[in-house]
C-alpha cells in the first residue's frame, strides 16, 4: 500500500512553507515532525485536552483535529511564533513569576487560549477566565495560579490601554 500524499503551501510563523504530506497526517504531527516545531504537544489526539492548540488564520484550533492538508493556504502560528513576535511576552512573564506552570506540557496550549482572551481586550472575572480556559487540561497546577497569571496580565493591559 503506497501512502496517498498531497502538496501543501502555507505560512507557519510568518515563514512560507511548501511540503508534500500524507493526506492522513494531522496538523500537529506535521508541525512537530516535518518542521521541528515541538512546542505544540499531543496530549490526547482526540480534541479534548487542548495541548495541541495552535492559531490558524487568527483562530485557535485543536491541531490534532485538523489535517495538515486542511491547513493548505492558511497562516499558522505556533507557540514558537507567538514567542518570537513578543505578542504574549507579558503573559509568559506572568506565568513564570506566578509559577502558573509545573511540567509545562499544557502551557503552550494554555497560553495560546489565554492569548485569545487577552486579545479581546475586555475585562473578565476570575470565573470568566476559568470558563475561557476550560478546554485546556492542566494536571499539575490546579488552575488557580494560571487564573492569577491571566488575571494579572489582563488587568495590566487594560490599565495600559
Amino acid at each position, binding site marked *: 500500500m503506497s501512502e496517498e500524499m498531497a502538496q501543501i503551501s502555507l505560512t507557519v510563523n510568518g515563514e512560507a512553507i511548501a511540503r508534500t504530506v500524507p493526506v492522513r497526517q494531522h496538523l500537529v504531527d506535521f508541525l512537530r515532525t516535518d518542521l521541528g516545531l515541538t512546542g505544540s504537544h499531543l496530549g490526547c489526539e482526540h480534541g479534548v485536552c487542548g495541548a495541541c492548540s495552535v492559531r490558524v488564520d487568527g483562530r485557535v484550533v485543536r491541531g490534532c483535529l485538523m489535517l495538515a492538508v486542511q491547513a493548505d493556504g492558511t497562516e499558522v502560528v505556533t507557540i514558537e511564533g507567538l514567542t518570537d513576535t513578543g505578542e504574549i511576552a507579558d503573559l509568559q512573564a506572568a506565568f513564570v513569576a506566578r509559577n502558573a506552570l509545573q511540567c*509545562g506540557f499544557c502551557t503552550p496550549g494554555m497560553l495560546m487560549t489565554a492569548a485569545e482572551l487577552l486579545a479581546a481586550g475586555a475585562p473578565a472575572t476570575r470565573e470568566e477566565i476559568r470558563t475561557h480556559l476550560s478546554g485546556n*487540561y492542566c494536571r499539575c497546577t490546579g488552575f488557580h*495560579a494560571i487564573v492569577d497569571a491571566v488575571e494579572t496580565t489582563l488587568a495590566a493591559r487594560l490599565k495600559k490601554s
Partner: protein
Amino acid sequence: MSNTMSDNVLRPDLDRPNSYVGRSLSRAGATRAVAGRGRYTDDITLPRMLHAAFVRSPHAHARIVSIDTAEARQQPGVALIMTGAELAKRVTGPWVGTLTCFPGMKSAPQYPMAVDRTCWVGEPVLLVVAATRAQAEDAAERIAVEWEELPAVADKKRALDPGTPAIHAELGDNLAYRKTIDNGDAEAAFASADRVVEDTFEFGRHTAVSLEPRGVLAAFDKGTGKLTVYTSSQCPHMIQYLYARTLGVPDHMVQIVAPDVGGSFGLKIHSYGDEIAAVAASIQLGRPVKFIADRIESFVSDIHARETSAKARMAISKSGEILAFDIDVLSGAGAYSQYPRTSVLEGTQILNVTGGPYRHKHHRARATVVFQNKPPSSQYRAVGHPIGNTIGEHLVDLAARALGLDAIEIRRRNVFPDDAYPATTASGITIKDMSHQRCIDVLVERMGYAELRREQAALREKGIHRGIGIACFIKSCAPGPHGYYGMGGAPIALQDACTIKLEPNGGIICAVGVTEQGQGTETVMGQIAATALGVPMSSIRVISGDTDAVPYGGGTYGSRAVAIGGEAVYQAARDLKGEILSIAGTLLQAEPGVLDIVDGAVVDRAGGARRITLAEIGRIGHFQLAELPRGSQPTLSHTRRFHLADDLYIFTNGIHGAYVEIDVDTGFVRLLKHWVVEDCGRIINPQLADEQVRGGCVQGLGGALYEHCLYDEAGQLTNGTMADYLVPMAAEMPDIEVAHVLTLSSVSELGAKGVGESGTGAAPAAVMNAVNDALSSFGARVTTQPMTPEVILTALGKV
C-alpha cells in the same frame, strides 16, 4: 503571602545575601516551557530512529490460540514484529511483584508482553517496529490473533467467591495479600462505647492521566554495548536497574535520561512491559526505537489506583472522645501485583492512616487485596491516603452529628496535642513534630469559620444548600530504608545523594539523584546549595535526571525530594564550603573558622571584608596547585548521601476546609472555595510549596468528584477517552487558599518533611464531608467516590 511562619529559624538570615531558603524564586525551567522550548521524550529525534506500536489484548482474559503476522510483515516500513513469546526468550525471566515485607503475599510471574494468555484489556501482546508510528500501526492492524476467551473476574467483591476461577491457577485463588492490625482491645471498646457510628464506602478505580503520556526512546550501541534510554521517568536509577536486569545488559552500561517530564504523579515510578519491549527492540535492531503511548493505550496500560470498598465503624464516648476504629478494606490489585513496588500498598496504607490524627487507643483494621482482570494498580499520588482520610473523617463527622458537636470541636477534642510528640498512633506508626492544634486554629481563622456557618444557615433558609467540610490528615512522606521497599527487597534507593563541585570559574555544579517534573526540584536544590555555600543562585547549575551525571539515588516519589535529597544537598554543600574555607585559610594564613563565604567570596566572619573570591579558589584549586602546600590534594567535589536512620517515614499533618453548594435538582456539586493549612516542615520556596498543595488538592478533587475507570462485567473499560473519563478543568475548580504552620522535622538538619501529595490525600475527605454537610438537612449522605450527580441524586432519593 499566605504563609504562616510561626518559627522559621532561618528568617533572621533572610536579609543576608545568598539566603534563599524561604524565598519564592521563579523556576529556571519555566522560561523554556512558556516559550515552547521544553524538551520532552517525544521531542527528541535520533538518526535512523524507528517507531513502535503494540497489538494489545481486546479481552480481559483470553488464551492466545494463534498469531498470524505474515501480512503485517509485508507492510511498508516494517522493521520488526515481536510476539510476547519471542520477547520472553530475550529477557532474563519474568517479574514477580511481591516484596518479602508482606508475608504471605502472592503474585504470578509476569512477562513484559503476554506469552500465551492475556489477563486484562490493553495488555501488550505484540510489538511492531516501523519507520513511522503510522506505518507501525498500519502493520499492527494486519496482525491476526485468534483468541479463546476465558472467564473474566472484574468485580473485586466476587474475586474470592468459591465459584470464581483463579486468574492465575498456580496461585490457587485470587487473594494477593491480607493484612490485619489489631492494637489495643477494639472488641471491648466497641462493646462498652456510648455510641458507635459506621458506614460503608466505595472508591472508584482511577488513573493518573499525566498530560504527557508514558514514553521511551531507546538507543542501543552495538559497538560499545551501551544502552541509552530517554524516558519520561521519575526514577532513572530504578529504571536503569530494571532494564539492565531484565534485558541482560550490565547496570553500568545503561544510561537513563529523563528529559522534561510532562507530569508523573507516581504513574512514572513504575515498570511497564511495553517500554521493556521497545527497549528490547532497540537492542535487537541496533537502532533507536521510540515508543510514546497514545491516550487510548494510556488508559488501559498505565497503572490504575484507588479501587476500594470499605466497611468501617468508630466507637465514641458521649463526651465525643474517639475510642476505637474498626475498618475492613477490600482493594482491587488488577491482574498482577506491579513489579517492583507491588499493588498492596494502597490497601495497607489505608490501615495505617485512617484516624491517624487522633488519640484513640484501639485500632483494628484489615485489608484484603485481590486480583482482577484489570490493569495492575499501584502507587499513585498520596497512596491510600485519600481513602483512609475519607473513611476516618467521615466517621468523625457522623459522630459529631450524632452527639450534636461542631465539626471543628470534635476534632479539637481528639487530635494529638502539639506537645505530645513523639507519639505512636493506635495503628502503630510513630509520629513526630506535628501541629494539629495550631493547624485547626489557623484554618478556623482563615475560613472565617463562624461567619461561614452563619452564611450557610441563612442561605439554607432560602433553599440554597451549602456545605462546609473539614478534614484533618496525616501524610507519610520520605520513606526510609526500614520501610516497605527497603525491608522488602525492592531495588529502589531509599537514600538520595548530591555531588557538588567547585568549577575553575567559581561556578558550582550540583548533581542530584532526585528528579524534576516541574515541581521545582532543581530550583529548590539550588536554593539549598546556594544558601549553605554562600553563593548567588546565578553561580549554581543543578543537574538531575541523567544516570551518567548524577550520584545514585531513588528519584522522586513519596514526597521525598526535599526531605531526603535536599538534606543530601545541604550536607554536601557544607562539606564543600568547609574545604573552600580550608584552602582559603591556607592561602590567607588565617584559621578557617574566622572566615565565611558571602556572595561568592571568602570574607572575614567578623567585619565581612572580602578576602578572596571563589573564582580564585577555583583557579588555584584546579590549575595553580603549586600555590598550595606540598602534599595538598584538594577534591573540590563532595558527595553526601542521606537516608532516614530509624523512621519508616516522616509524617506531615494538616487540615482542609471545603465549601460547596449542591443543586439538589441536578445533583451537581459546585466547589466554592477550598482552604488548606498544613505543616510540611522547612519550606524552601513558599510559592512552589503552595503550588504543590494546590495542584495536589485538585488531583484529589478530581478523584472525589469525576474520575472513574468504568469497567463492565466482562472487564471492558467503557470510558477510555478523555471525552468520557472526566478530569477536573479550570471552570469546575475553586480558588484554593493555602497556609502553613511550620514545625521543623527533627530527623534532619534542614527540617523539611514533604509537600507533594498531602493535598491529594486530604481534599477528597474534606469535599465529601462538605457534600454531606449540605445533604444533612435532607437526612441524606453519600459515601461513594466519585460523587457524581447520579450518586448525589440517588442519596436524595430522586433517581
